[in-house]
């Protein structure tokens, strides 16, 4: 299984736009319902704050992110990634407006370019819109508080926000594929987390440099997102949210070795296919070497795969946490 993870992480492009057919219908419907509720809520929230003049800005930002998603940058190992943009939009416009912007981007990609399916649109909106926007926004706010108000602080916070937003989106995608019985979690999660740990660096760099550019030329734009949730003790809340997101990411990864405690790490599929035909099947003799090493081999390798994934994400999260803490110490 570990080989398979390595192979898939090097061959597959950033697969966050789930096509139709890869999600089971119940999973797809849950995604649509969740997305509908959240987008409706976002519409209500932004309706209160958004002036008429900001609608064109939303459209322009949506068009910018849409265009930026087409530019692939190379990532180590022959894969390539592209900007998701949710974190950037959320930092500029606030998480609710960013949710709407990303919903538009993802919907156009599905409708016009078939990049992502129509039934899968609910989860694609949640993964690439809602999750990246909120992760990006709260990580940025939290890290900003740690890094201080300097230009460098903004860049560092943008880097962390971009990277983590991609990781959360990727982990969520893996969980949805697993829940649909399309790919076992012990394979999908480490593979997705592994590839996107690299792609996320690109996202972080682009987010940070876009923020640096905007901070230099139009610092007033950076205030727009900050003011959209004014009136709340936002700083304290976002610092807490940063840790919640970090914990959540770790928790998701921690599930993968748990899942591989079972012989095949595949509860859903096992349930659907039933274990019966395996035991009754007379054609075992076709493959003489088959019986003995199969189960043990797979268990060992899925655990190995899970542990690898945990190490990658834990290490990365630890570095971000340390950076933040060190900054905090030197600041105060």
């Amino acid at each position: 299984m570990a080989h398979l993870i390595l192979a898939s992480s090097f061959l597959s492009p950033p697969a966050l736009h789930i096509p139709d057919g890869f999600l089971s219908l119940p999973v797809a419907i849950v995604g649509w319902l969740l997305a509908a509720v959240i987008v409706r809520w976002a519409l209500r929230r932004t309706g209160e704050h958004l002036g008429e003049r900001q609608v064109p800005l939303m459209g322009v930002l949506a068009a910018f992110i849409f265009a930026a998603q087409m530019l692939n940058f190379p990532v180590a190992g022959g894969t390539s990634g592209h900007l998701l943009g949710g974190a950037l939009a959320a930092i500029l416009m606030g998480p609710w407006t960013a949710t709407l912007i990303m919903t538009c981007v993802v919907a156009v990609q599905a409708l016009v370019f078939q990049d992502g399916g129509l039934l899968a649109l609910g989860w694609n909106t949640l993964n690439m819109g809602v999750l990246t926007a909120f992760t990006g926004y709260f990580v940025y706010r939290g890290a900003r508080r740690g890094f201080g108000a300097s230009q460098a602080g903004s860049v560092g916070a943008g880097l962390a926000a971009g990277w983590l937003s991609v990781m959360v989106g990727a982990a969520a995608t893996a969980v949805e594929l697993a829940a649909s019985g399309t790919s076992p979690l012990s394979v999908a999660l480490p593979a997705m987390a592994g590839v996107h740990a690299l792609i996320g660096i690109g996202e972080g760099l682009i987010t940070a440099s876009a923020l640096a550019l905007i901070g230099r030329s139009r610092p007033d734009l950076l205030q727009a997102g900050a003011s959209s949730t004014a009136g709340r003790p936002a700083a304290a809340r976002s610092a807490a949210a940063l840790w919640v997101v970090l914990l959540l990411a770790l928790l998701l990864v921690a599930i993968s070795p748990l899942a591989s405690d079972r012989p095949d790490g595949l509860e859903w599929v096992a349930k659907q296919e039933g274990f019966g035909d395996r035991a009754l099947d007379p054609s075992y003799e076709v493959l003489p070497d088959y019986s003995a090493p199969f189960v043990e081999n797979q268990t060992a390798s899925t655990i190995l795969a899970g542990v690898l994934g945990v190490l990658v994400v834990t290490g990365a999260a630890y570095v971000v946490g340390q950076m933040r803490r060190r900054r905090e110490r030197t600041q105060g």
Partner: protein
Amino acid sequence: MHAHLADQYQAGQSLAHQLDPRVKVVAATLLILLLNLTPAGVWPAYLLLLAVVVALVIFAEINWWLVLRRSALVLPFALAAATLIFTVPGRPIWRLPVTGWTATLPGLTRFISILLKSWLSVQVAIVLAASTRFADLVWALQALRLPALLVSTFSFM
């Protein structure tokens, strides 16, 4: 890479082009829903659905090569499901050299079914996008009660 929103539309005079965009959006969604409801391994059903999709492409008078080329979009994602071939328990049919993984018949069935569903679904969506102007698509979504703020954001894209 795709360059512009307008590039996806293939001008034409077919019945599919002239159909009300609202009908097209709803019909495409329903057909994709139907495709995804098909259980794994029911090959006659897939054959029938393939015939429907082929009929759609002929009906809309869209270039075959274009549909095939664009539908390749889902192939990289197939890798996510490829693991099923080796992880679903069942009758072993083949052994991958060196690694010692065993492919099973139910695993292969599920994998091929997912691949077919995905490939057929994407072709339905391609026919919709290729036979409907972006502006008509946005109009149809508005008529189908998509919130105004989303519609105006679309129109600025």
